């Protein structure tokens, strides 16, 4: 089991590197994957390899690389958020989307656009997206917590209610929107990586890196929480504190992810599930595996969206929904027959 876990992690890391090379090369203008390596080597001081042609460098640096990195970060963030949510709520069907974080982020982003704040400073849109995600998470947390206990059933119910409410608000804002804003709004209801630049990637990093680090530091605690809150508490875990920290980290990480890509569904549900089947439920392995796997998955989804039907782009949110919904149905049907235990 131990060696299998290590093998999965190594394969995932290698796969991720390969996917990055593949994705930066593919597109309307083909760039050989080696060009990226040459560019990297050149900037690392191996001047001997020489720079690729200027056109390729421009495409790589200004278009492909930020886009691929954005997909990588969003995939990693959403998958990690899903792992934490499922562990925290002891529910293999939980994900940041189902728990309202995504609609909260959308509402924040849409509010930023509608009020014109987004135009005032590039910081406002991600900030409001994160604020919306946090607000949704804590509304749900507050509603479903009573006397220091958070009820799973009420998390799902409150999540449904808050999601519908926020979706309603997003639609309402859309009604009053000026024509030229509508295309921006569509981005915030479908999700995608078109036109992502270094700015979004660099703004997200200061939140994503510490957020993911906090999650990783709580991996063992997430294992304990699988025993139920009473059991975890009796083993010396400050359950309510841990819950608050993990919820905040998830909301921040998922909110930032959404500020980059718009809502991308099912990654947070599907990836943790898949990797729990592969490496088991131990969060010390499951979390890194899901982070790598989520990044890999979303890079490939975006790549597919760009290359399946050129010159049209299929938005990544559509790809994940088309792949994710059947998988989710499959999980529901399987759980019905076998119980919720495995995976």
């Amino acid at each position, binding site marked *: *089991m131990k060696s299998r876990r290590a093998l999965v992690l190594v394969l995932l890391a290698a796969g991720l590197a390969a996917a990055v090379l593949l994705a930066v090369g593919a597109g309307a203008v083909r760039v050989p994957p080696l060009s990226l390596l040459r560019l990297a080597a050149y900037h690392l001081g191996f001047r001997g390899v020489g720079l690729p042609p200027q056109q390729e460098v421009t495409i790589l640096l200004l278009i492909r690389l930020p886009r691929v990195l954005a997909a990588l970060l969003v995939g990693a963030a959403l998958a990690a958020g899903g792992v934490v949510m499922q562990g925290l709520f*002891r529910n293999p069907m939980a994900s940041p989307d189902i728990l309202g974080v995504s609609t909260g982020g959308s509402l924040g982003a849409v509010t930023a656009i509608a009020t014109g704040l987004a135009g005032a400073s590039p910081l406002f849109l991600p900030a409001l997206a994160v604020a919306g995600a946090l607000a949704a998470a804590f509304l749900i947390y507050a509603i479903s917590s009573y006397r220091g206990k958070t009820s799973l059933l009420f998390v799902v119910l409150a999540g449904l209610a808050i999601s519908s409410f926020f979706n309603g608000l997003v639609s309402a804002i859309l009604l009053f929107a000026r024509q030229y804003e509508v295309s921006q709004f569509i981005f915030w209801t479908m999700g995608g990586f078109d036109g992502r630049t270094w700015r979004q990637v660099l703004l997200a990093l200061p939140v994503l890196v510490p957020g993911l680090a906090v999650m990783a530091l709580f991996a063992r605690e997430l*294992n304990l929480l699988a*025993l139920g809150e009473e059991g975890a*508490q*009796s083993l010396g875990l400050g359950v309510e504190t841990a819950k608050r920290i993990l919820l905040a980290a998830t909301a921040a990480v998922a909110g930032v992810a959404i500020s980059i890509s718009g809502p991308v569904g099912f990654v947070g549900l599907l990836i943790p599930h898949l990797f*729990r089947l592969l490496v088991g*439920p131990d969060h010390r392995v499951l979390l890194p595996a899901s982070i790598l796997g989520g990044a890999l998955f979303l890079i490939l989804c975006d790549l597919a969206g760009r290359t399946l039907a050129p010159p049209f782009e299929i938005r990544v949110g559509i790809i994940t929904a088309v792949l994710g919904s059947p998988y989710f149905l499959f999980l529901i049907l399987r759980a019905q027959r076998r119980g919720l*235990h495995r995976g």
Partner: protein
Amino acid sequence: MAEPSPELLRTQSLGFAIDGREILRGVSLGVRAGEFVGLIGPNGAGKTTLLRLLLGGLRPTAGEVLLKGRPLSRIGVRERARTTAYLSQEEVSPFAFPVLDLVLMGRYPHRGRLERERESDLEKARRALSYVGLSGFEERYFHELSGGERQLVLFARVLAQETELLLLDEPTSNLDIRHQDLFFSMALELTREGKAVVACVHDLDVASRYCSRLVLLDRGRVAADGSPGEVLKPEILDPVFETSTMVTPNAATGSLSVSVMPRCWPGEGPRVHLIGGAGSAVNLTRELNRLGYRVSGGIAHEFDADHTLWRNLRLPSRVVGAFQRISAQDVEQAASLVEEADLTVLASFPIGPGNVENLRLAARARRLVILTGGPEDPPRTFFSEEGRALFGELQARSRLSDYARLQREMEEGSIQTPWPR
């Protein structure tokens, strides 16, 4: 007398209320090392609430819990977990953890937040598993085990936690008798090693068998606190459980067994009189009573198992003093029971001078069945020629039947149909 061991746990007029509704009030208890304390009481008496207060999962609204002399509220949750372990009814994780990983979680409070488990932790987890008899289960998945095995795994986790105090909340309520015994025997062994166990126990027989001390809770207050012998008395239990109980020593273990006295529902079926002795009519009485026959019995000797049962079931019966000779006068007094019965059954028991008159009583029966004794029954031995002669006469005017046939007839209701003399 040895010096009493120091108190691990002490509660001072502990109270707990939700929205002004009192769940517990004025609970003052001390628990010493080596004690096995059973919390007993009716549903809703506050047993689980008390246990959670002792664990620190709930905060008391009045009074205080002292753990080794220090207020529980001022002890960090990690430090608490190094002194107190807790186990409730079976917990099932929705995720497929291997057994060893679950047991290893018991080592969590002994390691720093970011410290890895050491080889010694692994060793302790393995030893705990082998203690509960589950060596070789390390890589099995928890949720694929049986309910009994799961509870043993969780017990191993509690062992790996290496605490002085164990709090168990109805730990065996879903287990079969073998696993129940295994579980409590291991807990008992831990108290012999100087740990203290406090357990909510629903089953009073189990509580009396394993616990050194019982605390009876009644609507949030301590109604009794003492050894099983001091607490398990009908006069104490009856008002708390609002029923009528009888406490008898268990034949297998000598511990106390608490039974709810049967309610008296007069049967509607035919009248059957049983003549027994030496416990020979106990099975028949139980079966007939269950099937709704109106049963009477006698003449029995006092303290005989037959009579004890007839008395407790409040069935009409005749009794003479223990080892006293049954007289012709006794037979006259009992005659009406036999003569009014649709059927009289003579069970298999030894016949001597003390009870030979019972054969004369049987002769008064309208219809008589003589039960041929099975291997479990006392043999029908004759200690006097008179007895043998009387029995011969009885045989001539009655029917012989074994227990199986009689029981079949009882079930079918054909027992009272006439048969040719």
